């Protein structure tokens, strides 16, 4: 799966999140998850959706390190 395809899938999943503070189309690779509006609970909700789509869930020790959208995409690229 290409980076672009993963990015498109994530955009779709983001549109379903309730706590989004920003326009999903304006989110870039360098957007931080806290800028999107995620807190520690809603980031888990989002990650459950990501798991539902890609069938992978990062170790919490890795998830904590993911600050930007780019970090998640690189993780998914490596896993699928």
């Amino acid at each position, binding site marked *: 799966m290409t980076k672009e395809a993963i990015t498109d899938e994530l955009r779709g999943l983001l549109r379903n999140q309730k706590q989004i503070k920003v326009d999903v189309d304006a989110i870039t690779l360098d957007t931080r998850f806290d800028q999107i509006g995620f*807190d520690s*609970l809603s980031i888990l909700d989002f990650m459950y959706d990501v798991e539902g789509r890609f069938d992978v869930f990062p170790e*919490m*020790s890795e*998830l*904590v390190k993911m600050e930007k959208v780019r970090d998640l995409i690189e993780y998914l690229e490596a896993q699928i």
Partner: protein
Amino acid sequence: MSSRATWPSFSLLYFANAPAEAEIGKFDLFRASSRFADEHDFEAVWIPERHFHAFGGIFPNPSLMAVVLAESTRRIRIRAGSVVMPLHHPVRVAEEWAVVDNLSQGRVDIAFAVGWNPNDFIIAPERYKGRHRVTMEGIEAVRRMWRGETFEGENGEGQRVKIKVHPLPLQPELNVWLTCSGGVARFREAGAAGFNIITALLFQKIDDLREKIAAYREARAQAGHDGPGQVTLMLHAYVGTDEARVKEAVRAPFKRYLESSADLWQVGEARLMDLSERKKADMLEFAFERYYQQTALMGSVESCRSMVAAVHAAGVDEVACLIDFGLPFDQIMEGMHHLDVLRRAQPSSQPSTP
């Protein structure tokens, strides 16, 4: 102008998570670790005030345990961290701590807090709404009484009378900290008033703290106060010989501690209780990892050195180590030796100075 030390001082701070049930030895760790700190050149022991909850609940009034420290230690500073000002009459604060100052040969400092938990205010419900104003007025009243000045209030017959507290403390001036746990406004207020500050990282990043400390020091300088003030940072701390072993040792007790303190989080306890088992477990694991990696002083001496250096670079002068989050007594006391090694360490590479 005084220059900052190259490494922060280290202190101990307590917030024991203990059930209310009667049990022998509830204060054993407090006694043993504070003696260790006294004998090993730690700067201070901070005693909290907490009410009606297992989280910190063995410390309902810091002046009580301060008496124990005054008698059992010889040189370490004895600090209230914090006196929740609206829950006390300023006269009682001045009296109680003047006694401790005498008992300890002048080793008392006090951090004052505004208070935040509505249930704590069952002690003084009428002061909850105006608790911020009550706190600032109370601090000034305590400081005046500390200097031997009079306090004017209403007596039992409705008459205005002036009193002086007895005994007078040994120290001519009370060193005051303000507990700053929220936004930058409180930091600026503490700076403008010339107070020192005690704060915690909790869920904020070190960069956020750096900005708040800068705002504190700017407000302090603008108000014309001497010196940079002292910034104390509470960090949950356990230091061992092996980083991986430390992480596994603290994982379960720290997660229990986080679960118990859930109503102090951004996420309310009721909300946490409502979660599915998986989500609750994931939430606690996520919180643990975030604390462990970003906001705690846990690991080996070597791995903790960078955390100490980072908070020092952000402007922190004193690291107050919260040690009683749930590890067994013997393990904590063993960790004290490694904490002392870290205390005596220096930055591994000093930035070059032109």
